[in-house]
């Protein structure tokens, strides 16, 4: 993908400087100097301390390899030092010390990526004390960051890992028009969220349309959909002015810098193209309104989330370059979810838009492969030509794109991070399980080896997690 070529150097630059957010917009690449000077953005004290874990090189042989780049073949994959070094029908002689895994009858895919999770912010065991996902005190809380709520010992984390998930975007909830920044985390054991934050992944900002904000703020406002729109516009008008003040100061360096405003800072990041917009929005007509909003303020919506009616405006999504993060079969649980159909992902894909299978569920995240299978077979049954490669992209390459990390992970290509899952069988079969999961080359889960089944602190003393057999 050409994005890889244009953005990789920027990501590398920000990595060297210890910033967690790679810029997204190729039009306005901020210079390294501006990064170090600005007080407004990407402050280094919130940096990632994630470190790749050591693992000998791994060669998986004789497996069916699904690369998420268009091909599925019988062959091998070799990875070393966290990177994929060879993938194909033949990969040559592995270096000494390589762990060789026989993949006969098994399947290999990229690690799964979920664009929509609340793991850590709505942690198990689900007490009120652990309910940290919605700062429902103002319709605009762009100033809050999900990473400041994430509990790294949420016992849902190892369960997601056992489902083959290597990366997830943790989002604030949908009570607010603008709910705050997301965190893109690597699914690894950790004591602190800093040890999970994906270096080089941009922040996202959670926005929400429709029923939730207008219900939560029924008394204060917004209480209608038109009130919702007015609320987003007011927030971005303020952010525009904030951005202008800072841009001026950054250029002129005269006098005191403008006062910092965390709320406006996040939205200014959106306007600069440095923060992705992740927009909870069910109804087709509302998604169209949000695309207009983005046009008014000159930003892109990277992905709609839930998008139960995405199939009705899939052509508009394709034109806008906005992904649809959607479910396979959830719907009907509220009015704005009433028109859910099983062929949503297939129709979005057919229209040329980026389809993403998301979960919004600590249960669903454990079986993303199954949801992709449901959506794929629903499509083929309806006569829509969905390929297995497209379906595997719904849970790998496409969500990686929606998070702005597709130059780093999401496919099995040489040079990408070795986020790799070995499945006991066809991942689109109900009977298959993730057998081994490597997170940047490190064996994060092995169904056949209890010592490779991570338990959080919370799991200790509460019996075996029981990942199935």
């Amino acid at each position: 993908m050409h994005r890889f070529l244009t953005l990789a150097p920027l990501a590398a630059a920000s990595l060297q400087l210890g910033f967690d957010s790679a810029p997204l917009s190729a039009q306005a690449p901020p210079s390294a100097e501006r990064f170090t000077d600005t007080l407004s953005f990407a402050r280094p004290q919130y940096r990632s301390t994630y470190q790749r874990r050591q693992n000998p090189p791994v060669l998986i042989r004789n497996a069916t390899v699904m690369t998420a780049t268009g091909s599925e073949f019988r062959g091998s994959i070799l990875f070393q030092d966290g990177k994929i070094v060879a993938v194909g029908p033949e990969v040559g002689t592995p270096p000494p010390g390589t762990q060789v895994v026989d993949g006969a009858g098994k399947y290999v895919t990229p690690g799964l990526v979920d664009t929509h999770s609340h793991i850590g912010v709505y942690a198990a065991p689900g007490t009120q004390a652990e309910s940290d996902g919605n700062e429902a005190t103002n319709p605009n809380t762009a100033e809050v960051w999900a990473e400041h709520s994430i509990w790294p010992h949420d016992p849902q984390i190892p369960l997601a890992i056992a489902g083959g998930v290597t990366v997830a975007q943790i989002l604030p909830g949908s009570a607010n028009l603008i709910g705050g920044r997301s965190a893109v985390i690597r699914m690894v054991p950790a004591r602190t969220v800093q040890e999970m934050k994906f270096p080089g992944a941009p922040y996202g900002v959670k926005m929400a349309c429709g029923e939730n904000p207008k219900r939560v703020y029924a008394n204060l406002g917004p209480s209608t959909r038109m009130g919702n729109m007015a609320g987003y516009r007011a927030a971005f008008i303020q952010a525009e002015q904030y951005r202008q003040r800072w841009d001026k100061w950054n250029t002129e360096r005269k006098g005191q810098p403008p006062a910092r405003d965390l709320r406006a800072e996040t939205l200014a990041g959106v306007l600069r193209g440095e923060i992705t917009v992740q927009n909870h929005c069910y109804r087709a007509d509302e998604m169209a309104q949000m695309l207009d909003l983005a046009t008014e303020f000159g930003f892109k919506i990277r992905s709609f989330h839930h998008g139960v009616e995405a199939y009705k405006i899939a052509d508009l999504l394709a034109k806008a370059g906005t992904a649809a993060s959607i479910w396979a079969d959830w719907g009907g649980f509220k009015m704005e979810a009433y028109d859910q159909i099983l062929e949503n992902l297939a129709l979005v894909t057919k229209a040329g838009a980026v389809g993403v299978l998301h979960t919004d569920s600590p249960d669903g995240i454990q079986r993303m492969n199954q949801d992709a299978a449901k959506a794929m077979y629903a499509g083929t049954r309806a006569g829509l030509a969905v390929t297995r490669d497209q379906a595997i992209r719904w849970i790998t390459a496409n969500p990686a794109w929606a998070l702005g990390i597709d130059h780093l992970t999401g496919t099995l290509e040489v040079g990408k991070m070795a986020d790799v899952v070995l499945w006991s069988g066809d991942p689109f079969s109900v009977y298959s399980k993730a057998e081994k999961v490597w997170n940047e080359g490190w064996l994060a889960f092995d169904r056949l080896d209890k010592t490779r089944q991570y338990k959080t602190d919370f799991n200790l003393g509460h019996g075996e997690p029981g990942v199935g057999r």
Partner: protein
Amino acid sequence: MNALRLESRPGPVAGRGRWQALAVAGMVVLWSTAAQAQTVAITGGNVFPVSGPKIEGGNVIITGGRVVAVGRNVPVPAGARVIDATGKWVTPGLIHANASAGAGVGGLGGLGESRKQGDINPSFNLTAGLDPEAITIPVVRTGGVTSGIVVPDGGLLAGAAVALDYHGDRADQMAIRSVALSLNLGAGSRGAGGGSRAGAIARLKRLIADAVEYDRRRLEYRRAATQAYSAPVEELDALLPAIRGQLPFYVSANRKMDIQNAIRLAAEHRLRLVILGGVEAWKVAADLARAGIPVALEPNKDIPDFEGLGARLDNIALLREAGVKTIIAQGDPGGERSLRYAAGNAVRNGISWDDALKSVTQWPAEAFGLTDYGTLAPGKVANVVIWSGDPFEFSSAAETVLIRGVETSLRTREHELRDRYRTLPPPR
């Protein structure tokens, strides 16, 4: 007859025999329509009768809404409507033992019909709240689910669990009958016990004692010569079939201690139980097996909470190894149509394929006394699904669904929407 089945209970019950007679009378009502009178022959399929081993290339003959013959060389009666099932898989219709389809509007908040306020509602029967026009009904049929057990919720004793077929033009035609009384043990009913589990158990014991006493002293009660009871007598009356063991209590319980409390209660009062939830049932699998208590559970439930810190995916496998009859009752946001995938996941989590099929057909039917449901043995109600392949696989689909011998529509509102937006912009 139909009015009878709408009632929450069979009226004052003199004894076991009378109740059973009424129950049987309810069962044998014939849903006699012209369509049901038709003879249908499903030919040449891979038949999984559940009552016996798989029959390759078998025929299933249906007359009057019942299966009349199953086998490889069973002749096709003259004049029968023939459905060629060559290469297809044929199973009994699936029974969802914790269904909501038909009771409320598609899961929309506030529009459910399975909850009555208050803690002690054994007389609550939701049958009149079933909506034959619910858009969820054809949707569940697309998943091969032909019957459901709708369980009321809330409080300590929520009411009667009602079995229904997903077919019929009126609630009383859909309903089969009440099959259990819903009992909640655990955090959900602490409120009914003044804030504690022990209080809830004590209240339940008092209700049982009162119901037994009331039943013994009906005449004195009418003469106002009894002490005050802890619940209105219509509620006590509704408890009696379960106290006598004619109906099971369908006990929502997840924590090991709650399941143990239920087992102890059943032993003390000689009650029949079916456990619903059973997140930690694996910890007491041997006790459940010994007491012959089936467990309806969610095979994918593995997220711990304080009602089930021991949640694990192989719960169902451990129960089967101990000899417990399991029932798969996954509550799935994708809807009850996904029951078959839950069964597939149960296989993934360690039980045999045959046991998984039984867990959505024969075992729920047996647990709830639906003696003419759950298999394709001759005499059973002809709820039959013809699948394109393995019913538990995503690649397969239910192609033909017969309920009471009648082919039902698998066209849903979702299909209407899909076809409108197949090409964009949609045709004007």
